[in-house]
């Protein structure tokens, strides 16, 4: 009995208790006898066990289906590169050539767009491309630049006509003359630069929150937005998204949501049809969105 009391007084270090829990101590180590007799050490042991259980919950996940196959495919590609060391260089050159052809084609076809003039110090970025890749179109941004005539301000009427026509063809599937005027007005509205605030709050109407959550997760993943930047909170009949995005990512997300049938109820910018905004596409913003069921 006296020996047990001594053991209790001289508690082992937390390192030993931890190692005891992991079965890393010799079974005849004095710690075993001590812990059996010491309520304080047993309590500590229980706490470590609870922490271990919580860690296991936090870090365990299902292995994605097809993981091995995807890895094997990647290894096979690597093997091909090793076996045909020049293949990679040839493919790279071919890719570079294709990019050059694309750029030349873009420049040639882009002559149909009317020449434009930057206004003030603001940088305005056209969103018709997929990225903020330097193909920024400076546009006329006079406050009343809503009439089609503004398009021809810096260009001849003929070239403006061609430009608007080509845009109509691109955006509306080549609609014919009767809708041309409306389409031009619509195009002009799309080219008016909008300000996107540092914090954007919007409300969307959705069919159900589960589908919306899947949709959003898919979009954000495709855009390579880090998971740490995203919070999705289910709250009864609504779903709340809080995300750290760039302006460009936000515009793409808004467009993708609209394209998937979600209805934007909030009038806050950016609206899906707006394709020009002020500032840099890489500027970070915080996006708060509420996805509510029904309209």
């Amino acid at each position, binding site marked *: 009995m006296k020996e047990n009391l001594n053991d209790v007084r001289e508690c082992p270090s937390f390192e030993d*208790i*931890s190692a005891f829990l992991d079965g890393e101590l010799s079974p005849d180590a004095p710690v075993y006898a001590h812990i059996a007799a010491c309520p304080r050490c047993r309590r*500590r042991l229980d706490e470590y066990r609870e922490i271990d259980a919580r860690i296991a919950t936090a*870090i365990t996940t299902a292995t994605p289906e097809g993981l091995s196959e995807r890895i094997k495919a990647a290894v096979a590609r690597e093997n091909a590169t090793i076996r045909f060391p020049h293949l990679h260089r040839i493919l790279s050159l071919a890719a570079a050539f294709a990019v050059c052809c694309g750029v030349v084609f873009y420049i040639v076809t882009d002559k149909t767009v009317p020449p434009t003039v930057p206004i003030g110090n603001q940088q305005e970025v056209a969103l018709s491309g997929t990225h903020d890749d330097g193909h920024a179109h400076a546009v006329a941004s006079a406050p009343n630049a809503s009439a089609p005539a503004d398009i021809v301000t810096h260009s001849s009427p003929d070239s403006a006509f061609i430009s608007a026509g080509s845009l109509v063809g691109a955006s509306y599937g080549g609609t014919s003359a009767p809708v041309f005027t409306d389409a031009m007005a619509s195009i002009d509205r799309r080219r008016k630069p909008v300000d996107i605030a540092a*914090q954007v*709050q*919007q409300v969307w109407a959705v069919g159900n929150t589960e589908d919306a959550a899947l949709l959003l997760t898919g979009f954000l993943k495709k855009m390579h937005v880090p998971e740490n930047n995203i919070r999705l909170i289910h709250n009864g009949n609504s779903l709340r998204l809080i995300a750290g995005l760039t302006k460009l990512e936000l515009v793409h997300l808004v467009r993708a949501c609209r394209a998937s049938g979600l209805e934007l109820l909030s009038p*806050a910018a950016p609206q899906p049809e707006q394709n020009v905004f002020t500032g840099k596409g890489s500027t970070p913003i915080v996006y708060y969105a*509420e996805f509510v069921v029904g309209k």
Partner: protein
Amino acid sequence: MKTVTADDRKLIAEFKSGNKKVFEVLVETYSAKLFQVAYGLLGSHEDAEEVVQDAFVRAFRALDKFRGESSLETWLHRIVVNLSRNRYHWNRRRGSELNLSISGHMPGLDDSDNPEDMSIPDESQTPDGQLENNELECLVEKGIEDLPDNVRETMILRHVREMSYDDIAATLQCKIGTVKSRIARGREMLRLILGHADPGRFTGSKTR
């Protein structure tokens, strides 16, 4: 410590003789296990898969030169831990550039010039309030994330793979005593974090 096994030797010999297909055995055997380790370290499916894929590609390139100083399993784990560490810090840097203050103060939120911006109820401005029920889970996740690299890696290898201290030491190329110390330190740090958040749950007294 796990040394190179007879199966490892056979596989390596076949690989060196030109049968590269035998590498698929390694992928089949270890991809899921390594994925779990990477996920434990990174907390993201996408990142974990990329890291594991990269690890296998690198292993494929280097297997010809593998010296057999440890088992293939230990070697692969070491590659994954190293790549995960790089990715972890890269993510953190990118995250900080992109403004990760989602849960923090939002300057300008209350004094927006645009009344349309107030179309979402005010409660949305305190998202953390929605997460109270998961507070302890979040604390554990955050606690793991904030552990020093070497402590976190040691803890993950122990808790995900249930590796012995000996194997962890071989994987991380450190001493067994160091592993013992890191694991105890990790548990103690998490205990203090949880004890601070929920004083009734854990004792405040420290064992010496």
